[in-house]
């Protein structure tokens, strides 16, 4: 037989626990809705990098800005077409990622930004990106505008010395920057990340529903 005063205390404690649970539950719900509780596999850069913004020229020769890609999940990658190994490898891998995402991939765009505007005209960029994936867009522009975008994401590129026959290489960042539909910088992928991680995180981001 439990004494009366103890029973009351227990009942109070029970009520308190229930209230706490409800409070915690609703907090978790709020957190989930905001996407904060998602466990990303790639490096989470939310809040640490500026929104997607640039003034460049697409591979149709049209002037475009970051705003034009709002509503799409954007995969931003810097490279150049005279790069025979790493850039095609990265774009071929992104093509496989897009294929693995199935119809969801239509909500994403690969933005391939040239760090070699002297050689990469919109026409060359058009043939190049389309050889990889129909959802890839080739962006070039003035050296100044490209540098502005590169600096914005603390990326860097360097034109290496001429090899004597007018050919040269360009060293560039190997990262892939992922932006959500609102143009917010969210994730950073490097060559060290397994392809599965990219598919996992993009699947989540693309499934989160349309922008509000």
């Amino acid at each position, binding site marked *: 037989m439990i004494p009366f005063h103890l029973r009351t205390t227990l009942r109070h404690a029970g009520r308190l626990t229930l209230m706490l649970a409800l409070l915690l539950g609703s907090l978790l719900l709020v957190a989930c809705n905001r996407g904060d509780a998602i466990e990303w596999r790639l490096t989470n850069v939310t809040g640490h990098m500026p929104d997607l913004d640039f003034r460049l020229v697409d591979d149709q020769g049209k002037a475009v800005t970051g705003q034009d890609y709002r509503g799409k999940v954007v995969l931003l990658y810097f490279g150049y077409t005279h*790069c025979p190994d790493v850039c095609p490898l990265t*774009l071929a891998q992104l093509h496989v990622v897009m294929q693995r995402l199935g119809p969801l991939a239509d909500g994403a765009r690969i933005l391939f930004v040239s760090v070699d505007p002297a050689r990469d005209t919109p026409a060359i960029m058009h043939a*190049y990106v389309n050889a*990889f994936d129909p959802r890839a867009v080739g962006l070039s522009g003035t050296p100044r505008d490209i540098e502005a975008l590169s600096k914005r994401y603390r990326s860097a590129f360097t034109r290496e010395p001429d090899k004597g026959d007018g050919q040269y290489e360009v060293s560039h960042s190997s990262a892939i920057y992922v932006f959500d539909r609102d143009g917010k910088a969210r994730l950073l992928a490097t060559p060290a990340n397994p392809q599965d991680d990219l598919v996992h995180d993009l699947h989540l981001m693309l499934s989160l529903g349309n922008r509000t």
Partner: protein
Amino acid sequence: MIIRTARALPLLATGLLLATSAHAGEAEHIRASHAWIRILPGDLPAGAYVVLENTGDQPATLRSANSTRYGSVMLHKSSSEGGVSRMAMVESLVIPAHGEAELAPGGYHLMMGKANPPVKPGDEVKLTLHFDDGSTLDTDFVTRPANATDAGDAHQH
């Protein structure tokens, strides 16, 4: 038989043996497989890849390669250190005795430039690999579209 005769003649032996090994050479012990080239649009340079297996007791050293279809073939290596992708020319690639060396995307590769006439995916391209001792190995490379990630199915030579 010739070698045995040469051995019997001490003065000639050294020279003859060297000449013999230069012909038989490193290339004789190399098996090439998964040979492919990633074809990019227009006249953009392409990357060529191959797995080289050395069945010999001595290491072999790949020095260079050439092809009648490309005006320029260079041995290169890509690296992605500190978040930066770079490409550098390399002098040689050693294939260890009873081991293998891989030319694969993101690492060692042959940079193929100035194709003439242009090479289309599906074409077969012959490359001659040159080794340190002057021996050579002819290898057929399959050509694959830009967004391929490997040599594809059933291309082991």
